[in-house]
């Protein structure tokens, strides 16, 4: 499992650097803006008041936009969505890409159990996501000394834990779907679609309360954003991590039991037909 973990992490290194630096740069740019916000508070509030109320409601209202948590909330609201793209692509590709290309045959012909392969790759994915968020967090923390936000590095880490939990939920969902659907592309599209739907449903539920029950079904609703600097909602965090564990366990169970596809084959169709075929034979025999 160690070899699988290290090798997979090595494959992630380019993405860790690219995503980490890009999101870290975002923090370096965004955090110093808080001082500008405070200096131009009146103009900012006037500008915000001129926005259509629906737009402001979509992004959670205007009540505390000038507070540190409100400011961070606004800047970080799309972070799970942006990093979610990485998570969905990486999660869906974790095993399915090698399987679709035929490389998994050779790897699994070596003395490594399916569980070890699955565990090693999943651990590398989690480590890569943490690494990206760590670089991003550093990007948000470095300008803090010159900022009026009044947030410690430790406090700044809390919203990132919330981001991590949401992103892992979508990444592991993509992994699970890649074990169930006939192609990695379908798994990425489905989980990516659910992620975008969660973002929009969560925003729209501020406008239409009837949508709130649907928004609560998706992980994005449990992203705390800037509010986390005053303390994490452990129930939400625990719930998201539990969902990730359930998705991972189901994906692992599925990977353990199913046939490894020859490159280019679809699994759902084949398994589904095989099941029907066996059922028909058992009924007729």
């Amino acid at each position, binding site marked *: 499992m160690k070899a699988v973990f290290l090798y997979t992490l090595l494959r992630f290194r380019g993405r860790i650097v690219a995503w980490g630096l890009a999101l870290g740069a975002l923090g370096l740019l965004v955090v110093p803006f808080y001082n500008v916000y405070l200096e131009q508070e009146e103009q900012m509030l006037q500008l915000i008041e001129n926005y259509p109320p629906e737009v402001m409601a979509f992004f959670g209202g205007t009540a505390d936009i000038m507070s540190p948590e409100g400011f961070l909330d606004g800047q970080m609201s799309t972070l799970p969505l942006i990093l979610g793209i990485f998570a969905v692509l990486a999660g869906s590709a974790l095993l399915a890409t090698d399987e679709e290309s035929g490389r998994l045959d*050779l790897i699994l012909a070596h003395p490594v159990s399916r569980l070890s392969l699955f565990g090693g790759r999943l651990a590398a994915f989690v480590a890569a996501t943490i690494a990206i968020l760590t670089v991003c967090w550093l990007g948000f923390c470095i300008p803090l000394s010159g900022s009026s936000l009044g947030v410690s590095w430790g406090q700044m880490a809390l919203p990132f834990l919330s981001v991590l939990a949401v992103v892992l939920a979508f990444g592991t969902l993509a992994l699970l779907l890649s074990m169930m659907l006939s192609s990695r592309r379908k798994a990425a599209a489905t989980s990516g679609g659910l992620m975008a739907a969660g973002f929009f449903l969560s925003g729209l539920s501020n406008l239409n309360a009837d949508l709130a029950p649907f928004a609560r079904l998706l992980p994005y609703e449990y992203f705390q954003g800037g509010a986390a600097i005053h303390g994490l909602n452990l129930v939400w965090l625990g719930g998201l991590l539990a969902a990730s564990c359930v998705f991972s366990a189901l994906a692992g169970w599925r990977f353990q039991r199913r046939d490894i596809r020859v490159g280019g084959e679809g699994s759902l169709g084949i398994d589904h037909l095989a099941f029907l075929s066996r059922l028909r034979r058992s009924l007729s025999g």
Partner: protein
Amino acid sequence: MTNTPAILTRSLTKSYGQVEALRGLDLVVQRGEIFGFLGPNGAGKTTTIRCLLDLIRPDGGTASVLGLDPQADPVGVRSRVGYLPGELHLEDNLTGRKILRYLSALRSRAVDWDGAHVLAERLRLDLDIPVKNLSKGNKQKIGLVQALVHKPELLLLDEPTSGLDPLVQQEVLALLREAKADGATVFFCSHIMSEVEAVAERVGIIRRGQLVEVADTAALIDRAVHHVKVRFQSAVDDHALDDVPGVTVLSHEDPQNVTVKVEGEMDALIKALAGFPVTRLETTRASLEDVFLAYYQSDEVSAEDS
């Protein structure tokens, strides 16, 4: 434990939806032999190997590899097996050296670089070129090196010489003989009958998921059909060879020349010809390909009849 066959399957079945890839495969491969597994595309060769490695799970029947159940102890089986897939896919950005290092790490051991370099040299492979810059044949060589370098007890090779030039093909066959000499069992699928004939001590022919023939290679060829051209010194009756057992007259171009087909041993024909003045006798040596084609042509005929 070492008395158990290297490979043993009993009534192995595997379906992909409506397609029955294996229909009760019974196969025994003894330890220390080179076994050629023949069959056209879709006959079930690759499915058999993938069942033996627990890459796919059979619907029914049992399989044993080196005395171990592949489903109960897949890691135990794979630690003693070297495998070359029929369709080899490698990571494009890695060099052969890095691939070998990674695959050896999966075996929790360091690469035997001395052995790897010897193999690479014999196969004329440069281990430091990225896979994306390698031809199909050179990628195949990496596959062969990774299968052979850890000196496994059992080699499962699916089309081992695919994409290789004739000189390297000969080297691969030599490597298989050496592996056998070192005590390994070699189980390989191939479409190239001449190479199976050259190295395999026994062959199995699989047709539509069932084993239709298993025999010593030489014995199988001896049982095959031979074509014999006979030139007589003087004219001979058209029907002179009609009643010879196992002999069918194919053509009688003129009273002095006749071409016959002989099934099985030649003894009856030789004895029949002893009564005539023969000036020339030409025998076409049967090959494994003739045997193989005979099975499949008869299959096509029976399919057409039904």
